[in-house]
């Protein structure tokens, strides 16, 4: 039992990091319909901004805030300077997926050319481990869980209850109608990119704190797991992304505790594929349902 409980605790930590990032990924996708595979690079880049600040003595949580702003700005810039022009140029959705991969590669390797292929870590002690029955978590991990819970609640609440959130949802379901109803499309889309990038920034710093060392490609490597969580929940549904993150996080850690830990990611990915086969739209997808992405 104790193995299960502690694994569950670890699963929640992983899920928290996943949830922050997966909500960012899926929110932006639902509003703009761009499957942004450069998301992991935004995480890395913001994570490095936090690293540089941390190096000159800025507290890591403050650096995380800076990373959020930075991630948001990078994200908006990518959209305005690259994606939007390409969409206007008539590149279809498949083409856009390939463009986002290109952007991710350029970012990752550009960064690598600057920082080298070396390892980096934040200067931030994890704090003493706290024991709650069989749960063992550090202060840092508790903080990450709290941040994740707060952020996902805020995003969900904003989508549900604010005018801007409603405009965003409207844009996600039916762009033409939303535009006709006077939704300021351009600024809402820009906001979606900003929020998505900010979440990428926070998720990136949280990830790097958690794994303690990182390189110029760590974010992109983690992206696959984020996508698994988002797809599992039903791409386009922030609530689904949280649920997907929980499933992936808990399945990997609990599965790893009882089965071959080397294959725990395989377990999570298999769950994702099986769920998709049974429920092709994902676990939790009202928004996604409405817009099957075809050519």
């Amino acid at each position, binding site marked *: 039992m104790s*193995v299960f409980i*502690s*694994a569950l605790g*670890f699963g929640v*930590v*992983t899920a928290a990091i996943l949830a922050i990032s997966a909500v960012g990924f899926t929110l932006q996708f639902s509003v703009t319909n761009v499957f942004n595979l450069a998301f992991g690079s935004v995480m890395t880049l913001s994570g490095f901004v936090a690293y540089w600040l941390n190096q000159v003595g800025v507290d890591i949580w403050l650096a995380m805030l800076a990373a959020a702003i930075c991630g948001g700005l990078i994200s908006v810039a990518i959209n305005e300077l690259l994606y939007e022009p390409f969409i206007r140029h008539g590149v279809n959705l498949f083409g856009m997926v390939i463009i986002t991969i290109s952007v991710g590669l350029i970012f990752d390797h*550009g960064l*690598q*050319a*600057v*920082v*080298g*292929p*070396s*390892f*980096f*870590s*934040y200067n931030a002690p*994890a704090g003493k*481990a706290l024991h709650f029955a069989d749960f*063992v978590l*550090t202060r840092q*991990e508790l903080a990450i869980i709290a941040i994740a819970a707060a952020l996902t609640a805020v995003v969900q609440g904003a989508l549900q209850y604010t005018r801007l959130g409603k405009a965003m949802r409207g844009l996600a379901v039916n762009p033409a109608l939303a535009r006709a109803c006077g939704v300021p499309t351009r600024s809402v889309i820009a906001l979606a990119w900003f929020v998505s990038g900010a979440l990428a920034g926070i998720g990136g710093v949280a*990830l790097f704190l*958690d*794994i*303690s*060392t*990182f*390189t110029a490609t*760590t974010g992109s*490597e*983690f992206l696959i*797991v984020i996508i698994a969580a988002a797809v599992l929940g039903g791409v386009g549904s922030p609530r689904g992304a949280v649920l997907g993150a929980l499933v992936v996080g808990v399945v990997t*850690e609990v599965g*790893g*505790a009882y089965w071959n*830990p*080397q*294959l*725990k*990611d395989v377990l999570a990915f298999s769950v994702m594929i099986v769920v998709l086969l049974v429920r092709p739209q994902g676990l939790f997808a009202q928004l996604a349902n409405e817009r099957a992405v075809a050519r």
Partner: protein
Amino acid sequence: MSTRNGTRLLTVGGAVVAALGVAAWGSNSSAGSTGNAQSKSSGVKAAVATTGSVEVAIFHAFSGPNAAYGPEAGAGCYPAERLINAAGGILGHQLVCTPVDSKGDPADAVPAANRMIASSSNLVGVLGGGSDTATSVVPLFQQAKIPVFSTTGQSAFDKTKDTYFWRILSPDAAQGSAMAAAAKKLGFKRVAALFGNDSAAQGSAPTAVSGVKRLRLKVVANQTLAVGQTSYRSEAQAMSTAKPQAIVSEADPQTSATFFSELSQVGQVPKLITDPVSQEPTWRKAMIGAIGKSALDQRDYAVVAYSPMTSQAYKVYTAALLASSKQVSKPSQWDADLYSVADYDSVITMALAMDAAHSTKPGVYNAYITKVTSPAHGATVVHTYAAGKAALAKGKRIQYVGAVGPLAFNRYHNAGNQFAIEQFVNGNWKVSSVLSAAEIRAASGL
């Protein structure tokens, strides 16, 4: 094709060239700004090397997951280059070290090796082929008749028939046995094994585990880590529950750091019995980030090739290394790195063999490598290139005893080494005890 199409093609072609140009410019400025370009002095490739120079290639991964291999070998090659040229070069030729990126995978390494062989007419030797690529590239150097000094630990080369293959350090299997012997010698009863699933770590894992069992110590946990995962919490929890006194371990920097940072969160990090990887600066940097410097230095026992780091050859090497800051970024980080030291000895050995053979032709001097390293009656023992060159000039037979110690190549061109347990004390690695051949035999059963 119509003219119009032709023009379009030209436009696109021009654009591609422009893109390449932009990219080149971008990378140029970035390389300049970081200031850690590998070697400004050695120029690009053989094409730029001065006529009359001979070239030793550093054929290792400079990118990808094993990107530390390249700079590590460079830290051996450049000091050797400096000392050899300071002694007037080899038979009047200057020696040049040239980095070539193998990228750490066979499919990229093979064309890179072939391009290197084809494009440099004065290539006389190769440092390279780590565990990631040795089996695919060593045959190419064999065909090209170019001596290759490899740091691979694969047992595939234990009884190789490749006459141009040379290996100074013991294979991974011996390393594993030595780690088991160290656990016994240090008096641990409850031992855990923790190895990455990468090729380098998997070379020593089986013999380490079997050695611990053979020495009748209790294996309380035997874990293999899938490298590059974002967390190993479950594994760390299981390790903590098993309560080992010591963990026998080899894994890459990132994997080790992630695991041990998580282990330190759930419980105590026990003593560590590690391999030469733990003397690499990248590993130390990552692990210090994970569990802190003092914790690491208190716990870590590195089982490495026994080299009297107080020896004359070693002192000459470190002095040359520290003077090579132009080619080697932060040279002091490598001064105890066993692979760097072995690569230094490799280059000096090649140079002395050329002198002994009176030829820089790889096909000729290869046969002289054993002649300048093996102990022989009446041979002058030398510890530096300059001394060896002088002795050879006087027509004497020499035995080069390098920074790693004597290089006793067997008929399979494997030298093998003694092992020692080292600890990091006051900013330096110190030998705490030497493992005897009998102790290692007890672990390996051979």
